[in-house]
């Protein structure tokens, strides 16, 4: 089976799902990405990414219970699948390999 590659947003979203564990639903994922990497992802774009990843088998989803705070609408919780974890591992390995032996000076800081 060929290794699935990840886009940048897919990569970020998968990591957010791992961080949020059982609390990974739309608004929480959006908020975490905004707080951690200062990236304001619209809910529409986020759900579209999640749907695409679900089709690729990288994530699964399940509906939670409806709450009054959400106008009687249920949350959809997402979780990373084994294939999603493998794709993340592969992406990290690729980046690590490409960074090996490199150091970059930007804004007085060194990245290696």
């Amino acid at each position, binding site marked *: 089976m060929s290794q699935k590659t990840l886009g940048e947003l897919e990569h970020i979203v998968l990591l957010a799902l791992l961080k949020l564990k059982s609390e990974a639903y*739309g608004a929480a994922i959006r908020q975490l990405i905004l707080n951690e990497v200062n990236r304001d992802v*619209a809910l*529409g774009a986020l*759900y579209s990414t999640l749907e695409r990843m679900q089709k690729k088998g990288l994530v699964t989803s399940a509906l939670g219970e409806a709450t009054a705070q*959400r106008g009687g609408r*249920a*949350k959809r919780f997402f979780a990373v699948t084994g294939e999603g974890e493998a794709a993340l591992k592969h992406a990290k390995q690729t980046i690590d390999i490409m960074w090996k032996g490199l150091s970059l000076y930007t804004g007085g800081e060194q990245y290696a």
Partner: protein
Amino acid sequence: MRKSNTATIFKIMVWLLSNLANRAYRDELIGDLQEEYNARKEAKANTVAWLLHQTIVAICDGQKAFIKSATCAKLIGFALCLIGLPMIALFVVWLSNMGEVSDTLWQLVLAGEIHQIVANTEYWTQAWYKTSHYLHVSMFFNIPSILWAVLFLCVAIRLLKNANTTIWVFSIAALLYILLPYGFGYMLINTFSPAAKKVGPILAFMMLAPFYTLPLYVMFLFTRFKNIRK
């Protein structure tokens, strides 16, 4: 006053999203939006611009998904039938009963430029009159077109046997097949410039082949892709 304005805007956005956002996750998205909207209201953050941005992105995404959906392909097929079949019927009746026409229209007929003929006002006046006076079923009988439609049936059945054939692949293949007689006839007339008497049957094939195959294509759309909406 301002608070109630924001609440009204929110209701409008929810209504828009309920109708135009991606059907696959519409409810969850609106729920998330409501949750964040409440939090922003409490924090006194800018809500209107944020709401507008969220709604526009979600609607664009929803419409993008709709354009790719089976429902959209079915709607296009149905609309093509609704517009195309009466237009073809009108043209066939006009062609079968063509009397005195202006030189411009006659030249267009000889050149097989049907797409230009239907843009001509003289054609529409005549076609409307002829259809109401001289309509007859036999005008629609054309053996090459019937054979073309039978061949379409065979090709479509074979294509649909393949499980990987999506509704869009089928639609593009079918529409190309349907348009082929028009392109072929147009090319034939413009390459060989046949005598006026021979142009008529070519024009009939150019129009009647799509007339027979278009409904077959729509039939396949609604029967073979019956339960597919995405």
